[in-house]
């Protein structure tokens, strides 16, 4: 019997699902609604200076990397199975498309965060 490779992706799915369940809605509200409208937060919360300062610190860098990559891995795993639910057979091709996109996003985020510097 061939061992499934799903445990690896499932753990990333679970971690991303848990993180987005805990703080996802609030995070979207802050960056997408509150900050642009200045609702309850500083008008310059996401200004260039603040963003650079945040992304140069180790905690900020890790936070951004973890949020972007885990959200992507969570979505990729769910979408992979949803494709099967909709009649698209699971397998290497669907895996490459779904998990490949999440991997690409993780790599791009890592490179960009490193390029921002410390």
């Amino acid at each position, binding site marked *: 019997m061939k*061992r499934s490779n799903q*445990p690896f992706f499932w753990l990333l799915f679970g971690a991303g699902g848990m993180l987005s369940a805990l703080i996802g809605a609030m995070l979207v509200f802050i960056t997408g609604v509150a900050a642009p409208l200045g609702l309850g937060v500083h008008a310059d919360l996401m200004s260039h200076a603040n963003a650079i300062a945040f992304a140069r610190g180790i905690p900020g860098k890790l936070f951004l990397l973890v949020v972007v990559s885990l959200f992507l891995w969570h979505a990729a795993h769910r979408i992979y199975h949803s494709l099967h*639910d909709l009649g698209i057979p699971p397998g290497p091709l669907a895996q490459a498309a779904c998990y490949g996109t999440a991997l690409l996003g993780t790599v791009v985020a890592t490179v960009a965060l490193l390029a921002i510097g410390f």
Partner: protein
Amino acid sequence: MADTRKIVLEVLRYTPGQSTAPTLQQYPIEFTDDMSVLQGLQQVKDFVDGSLTFRWSCRMAICGSCGMMIDGAPKLACRAFLRDFLPGPLRVEPLEHFPIERDLVVDISDFVDKLGRITPWIEPREPRSLEQGEYLQTPAQLERFESFSHCINCMLCYAACPQYGLDSRFLGPAATALLHRYNSDSRDGAQAKRMELVNSEEGVWACTAVGYCSEVCPKAVDPANAVNQNKTASAVSWFARFLPGRG
């Protein structure tokens, strides 16, 4: 009969070698408040159409024989009451995801084969002679597997599982629940053998936690929980391979 009401049973009929495709046949029946769907079918068979074929035995949700799709949902016919489906008509079909053998009888050989694959017995962790006495177990050890031993093999969970419907290689809810029952028994020592099946592509990983299997289970076995606990176990074993000194 006192206080009878009327309902139309709309029953799927199929006879291999005669029918080209399944058809629905309507049977108007009179029923009393205490009559189950199974009793409705029995009334049809006894007084209207003796050729109607379905499985049943105990009439009290213990034998697991009379599982069928009742109004589109997997249910035991003995546990569903006609009064709950008024005004009707009430659609009665064979269990989803299994090939029809005849009318409401399905071919269960795939499930029976799966049951055979999970090593559904205790292989003692340490052999004991008769003189050494029985295998002792604490209430807490019993609690770990007891609910999973309540399965009556009615296969409602398989009819409820879209993943089994999409790909029947998936070991599925009930067989995994029973596997889990043995794997979490303190007396058993065959976990490694069963984990090979759990970890495989046919094992637990087709499950997407739909959860409908546990909803339809007439015995509150919660097979979805068994499957998902084994995902955790399988994930642990997946990573344990990379630890030093592990195979």
